[in-house]
């Protein structure tokens, strides 16, 4: 019994501790999923209904009214493959940013790796992402989708980028929210921008042409590179490449223009790199701020 060393309590190993307490993480996720739709008739079906309605709204407004159906082949699949990914990001980050304050009662009383809460929030969102992905897959198969290993890898990379971004930003804003409750409102604003700042509703060529028209070719090129560096843009384009592109064909869709050039060999490593940096930055900030959680909550 006395073999253990004297250690300083309250200094965890950060995200590594989360890996060590996988069982608790699983229970926290199960709790969230059980509690989320308690007392509702449709239950988990809401995970289908909400994106379904959202999809129909966008499809009417953009596809039919604004004519996206005409200049983009299989626009519904294009639209939906982006929407599911952005929805995942929005839900994950929105909940992760609130998770520390939301679990304040527990954090104030018992020591446990606090990174568990943002990670559990992202995981719960990933569970909600699955039914949407299934709907997308059905739509893709109807559209004649036959993926190769490259497509699968692209989808995995896109998912990984968004997950790491959500965990990293969730750690950062979740910790900041303890000190300033403005943080969660800032996140809401950020999420509103995220949907429009990545090529979910429109195509990347429209961004390029629009920027060139408005700012000339020099500044336009710079702005377009900035737009392209957004890891969400890269992730969404990876999903387009994986799910939408295989359903298109030559005369209507030019494979060279369907997704941005160098998506796989240059932009994907950049996106993964940025996401990794964000997760490290989030973890560092979280570690610096968590020492005072118990007294600030």
């Amino acid at each position, binding site marked *: 019994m006395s073999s253990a060393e*004297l250690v300083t309590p*309250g200094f965890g190993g950060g995200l590594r501790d989360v890996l060590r307490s996988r069982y608790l993480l699983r229970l926290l996720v199960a709790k969230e999923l059980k509690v989320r739709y308690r007392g509702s008739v449709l239950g988990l079906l809401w995970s289908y209904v909400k994106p379904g309605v959202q999809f129909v709204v966008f499809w009417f407004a953009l596809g039919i009214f604004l004519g996206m159906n005409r200049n983009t082949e299989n626009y519904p699949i294009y639209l939906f493959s982006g929407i599911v990914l952005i929805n995942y990001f929005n839900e994950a980050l929105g909940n992760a940013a609130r998770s520390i304050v939301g679990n304040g009662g527990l*954090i104030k*009383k018992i020591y*446990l790796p606090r990174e568990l809460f943002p990670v559990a929030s992202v995981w719960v969102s990933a569970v909600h992402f699955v039914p949407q992905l299934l709907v997308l897959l059905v739509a893709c198969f109807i559209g004649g989708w036959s993926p190769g290993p490259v497509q699968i890898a692209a989808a995995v990379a896109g998912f990984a980028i968004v997950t790491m971004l959500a965990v990293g930003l969730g750690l950062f804003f979740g910790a900041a929210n303890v000190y*300033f409750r403005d943080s969660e409102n800032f996140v809401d604003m950020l999420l509103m921008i995220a949907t429009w700042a990545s090529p979910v509703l429109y195509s990347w060529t429209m961004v390029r042409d629009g920027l060139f028209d408005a700012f000339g070719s020099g500044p336009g090129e710079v702005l377009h590179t900035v737009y392209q560096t957004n890891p969400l843009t890269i992730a969404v384009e990876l999903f387009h490449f994986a799910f939408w592109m295989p359903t298109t064909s030559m005369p209507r869709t030019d494979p060279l223009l369907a997704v941005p050039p160098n998506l796989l060999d240059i932009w994907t490593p950049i996106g993964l790199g940025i996401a990794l940096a964000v997760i490290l930055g989030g973890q560092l900030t979280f570690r610096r701020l968590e020492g005072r959680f118990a007294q600030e909550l």
Partner: protein
Amino acid sequence: MVVAVDVQSISKQFVLRHTRSIKEAFVWIVKGRKGDLSQKFHALDGVSLQVEQGESVALLGLNGSGKSTLLKHISGVMLPDSGTVRTRGRVAGLIEVGAGFHPDLSGRDNVYLNGAILGMSEEQINERFESILDFSEIGQFIDTEVKFYSSGMYLRLAFSVAIHTDPEIFLIDEILAVGDEPFQKKCLAKIKELGDAGKTLIVVSHDLDLVSKVCRRGVLLEHGRIVMDGDVADAVETLRNRH
């Protein structure tokens, strides 16, 4: 003897912040930092404490003397501004039982969730589940949602989980007032049993008679400082005479 808890001259200042938004902080800076945006006070002021393995220590003092804050430092929930805290072996807090309970989950789910929060593994909970259920006297209501429990049932289940975590160091904060008298006696007997089994106990309670039964050593705190450290009977006596 082996030291189980080693607290070296820790201090903790609390900021009583009046504002919680960036706007108010900004206005305060623009106005030339007039007035106090925050007030500070010392919750702990140079506290040193060594507890040996198997000792049972009572932390005594009036409200606001720093007892619970000290306990939170030992559990790692709070980190000191200066000084060090070190512990040997697993620490579990019976601090405000039921903190990890969720009203919408069944008693069974809550046992697993709370057990895991307190650091038990899945196998450990499975193994001790029957014992937890027996001790809590919840019986058939274990699969009922906790929100339908009476407050006594709720606390009994929570206490039962906490007592089964089996750490080396037990931190007990004002939880002995659980349930009706028979159950209280049972809890007390269980805690004494833990003490006899060589567990280190650190107890915070305002029930001085009860504390003197459980603990041998008493540490008296006042305004964040230790003013006395000795036999529990003497510490209780001193506390009573001072006020």
